[in-house]
């Protein structure tokens, strides 16, 4: 195949070739960035949460009646809820928390060692540490991994109006921020005395993985009105059964509650990234449309040039080109266009990536992705031009002796 001559003949139809190349480049640019968005989202969804997300059920609810303004009443109902839920077959443990892991803001507070209040100035993440009000079951429910010390116990629970800060669990990254490599046990923070350190779990996916600062205190009974979420650790395989029973179980204890969400921790993670996923899906849909449109263009482009080249194809055939030579010739011509389009597309992908990153966060394109996306373009383009190419190879050689 005479590539140089091919290139030259492409140059002679700058406009149509240019249009197609531009289309291919834009399509590739979008394809790459859409793939990046989709991959980014998948990566986010696949990141380690440190939680047995499939087997933790979240029940979010809110009392609807004024009776709950009586906090003793509130507390008695909650205690009964906890006991009743625990008795459900398949439920291993139940706890109550004011907020969920894997969330953007929530209840935040600054945390520092009482001897070193200035530390908050050095690490801005110490200003917005997640403060979990919960009960002694949390360690078991979330299957937290103890690094040192112990979990919270019933004895750590604080009563209404307590002046004390009580005992707290902290996450490992918070321990490192406050106490470095040393032990944190027995240290006094502004939020309480550290009795245990647990391995990090994903508290807020929008902040760095090593800044997942969290404090857990046994105080949800003290501020019982903040306890909006029951967490249930369920034996593997029982999740659906439990899910179907929880609402009725809770309402049987006391009906004046609005149970507005029953989902697993895994679904909660999905929900958190729902809009990222939605955007990626929108982009992929647009890509599909774009590939479709570009395929039509490739088809039209081939068709157009073949109609103009009929005579020359005939001459080639007369001079001894076989059908497959012609097929290869036409396809090579297209492939050459796609190659140029893809090379330009790389630039387009980078430019588009920069443009998009003004509005949303996304990773940089990599070579592998570029090659894959190019392969998609090649396959789609080749499929689209196969019919005109085959038609061309069927042009009879006798055309050569016809005078126009």
């Amino acid at each position, binding site marked *: *195949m*005479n590539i140089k*001559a091919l290139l*030259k*003949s492409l140059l*002679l139809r700058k406009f149509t070739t240019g249009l197609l190349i531009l289309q291919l480049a834009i399509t590739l640019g979008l394809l790459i960035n859409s793939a990046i968005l989709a991959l980014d989202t998948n990566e986010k969804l696949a990141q380690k949460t440190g939680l047995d997300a499939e087997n933790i059920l979240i029940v979010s609810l809110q009392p609807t009646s004024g009776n709950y303004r009586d906090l003793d009443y509130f507390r008695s109902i909650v205690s009964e809820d906890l006991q009743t839920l625990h008795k459900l077959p398949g439920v291993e443990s139940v706890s109550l928390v004011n907020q969920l892991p894997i969330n953007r803001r929530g209840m935040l507070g600054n945390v520092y060692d009482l001897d070193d209040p200035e530390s908050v100035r050095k690490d801005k993440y110490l200003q917005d540490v997640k403060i979990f009000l919960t009960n002694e079951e949390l360690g078991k429910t979330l299957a937290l991994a103890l690094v040192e010390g112990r979990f919270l116990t019933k004895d750590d629970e604080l009563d209404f109006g307590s002046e004390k800060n009580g005992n707290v669990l902290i996450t490992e990254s918070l321990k490192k921020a406050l106490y470095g490599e040393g032990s944190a046990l027995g240290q006094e923070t502004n939020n309480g005395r550290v009795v245990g350190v647990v391995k990090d779990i994903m508290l807020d996916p929008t902040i760095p993985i090593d800044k997942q600062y969290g404090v857990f205190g046994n105080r949800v009974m003290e501020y019982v009105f903040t306890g909006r979420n029951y967490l249930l650790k369920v034996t593997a395989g029982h999740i659906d059964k439990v899910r179907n029973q929880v609402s009725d179980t809770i309402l049987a204890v006391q009906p004046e509650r609005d149970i507005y969400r029953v989902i697993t921790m895994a679904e909660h993670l999905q929900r958190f990234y729902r809009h990222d996923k939605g955007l990626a899906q929108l982009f992929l849909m647009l890509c599909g449309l774009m590939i479709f449109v570009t395929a039509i263009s490739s088809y039209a482009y081939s068709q157009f040039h073949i109609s103009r080249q009929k*005579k*020359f194809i005939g*001459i*080639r*055939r*007369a*001079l*001894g*080109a*076989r*059908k*497959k*030579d012609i097929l290869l010739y036409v396809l090579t011509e297209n492939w050459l266009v796609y190659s140029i389009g893809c090379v330009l597309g790389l630039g387009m992908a980078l430019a588009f990536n920069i443009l998009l990153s003004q509005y949303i966060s996304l990773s940089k394109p990599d070579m592998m992705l570029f090659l894959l996306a190019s392969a998609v373009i090649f396959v789609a383009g080749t499929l689209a031009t196969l019919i005109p190419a085959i038609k061309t190879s069927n042009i*009879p*050689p*006798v055309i*050569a*002796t016809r*005078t126009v």
Partner: protein
Amino acid sequence: MLKMNNISRIYQSDTIQTHALRDFSLNVKAGEFVAVTGPSGSGKSTFLNVAGLLDNFDRGQYELDGVSVQGLKDDELSRLRNEKIGFIFQNYNLIPDYSIFDNVDMPLRYRGFSASERKRRVEEALEKVGLASRLKYLPSQLSGGQQQRVAIARALAGEPKILLADEPTGNLDSLMARQVMEILHDLNKGGATIIMVTHDPDQAREVSRNVQVIDGQLADFRIYAPLDRSTGKTVSAAVKEEMADA
């Protein structure tokens, strides 16, 4: 070299059947220069298309250089065209986007020659027609006669067994036509077998054998004595002179 026996070629449309060739028989020996004449519509173009394996035929036998062509597959026909036949068309049929070199080179590529072999052959062929210095020109930068000489070079480069020329001087003025004819005669003297379709009785008279097609059949056999060529010059010498004039 070329043996046609009772060849028929019928064009079928919805209402009428046209016998473009009817029991057409012709035997051309190696080294012959045959002129095919006939009124338009007589079937001489069809004859050339069939002879050049560009078109198939409906009945009869056709043997080219010892190869019986009926029943051959499309690829085999392509191969035969490429190796055994050199085409010279009335309107040259050069590819306008290609340089002279690339045009002559094109059929050689389908032959699968190596790059150096192709280069040697292209240059040799262009040398023969006196255009070795114009490798990089586009066809549009050449005169009609020169373009036809490029086409002849393209036909020669593959060292074919037989040259098929379809009104090779039809689009040329008389001076250019003469130069082209001289090249063909020289090639014939060098041993090439040539079949030329022409409507010019003078050209027909110059060649070793003249056949006429009327109504799809071979009408007549007349053998003329080759015209006495007084100049005695070789072709390339004549061409060099022309170039010096230009």
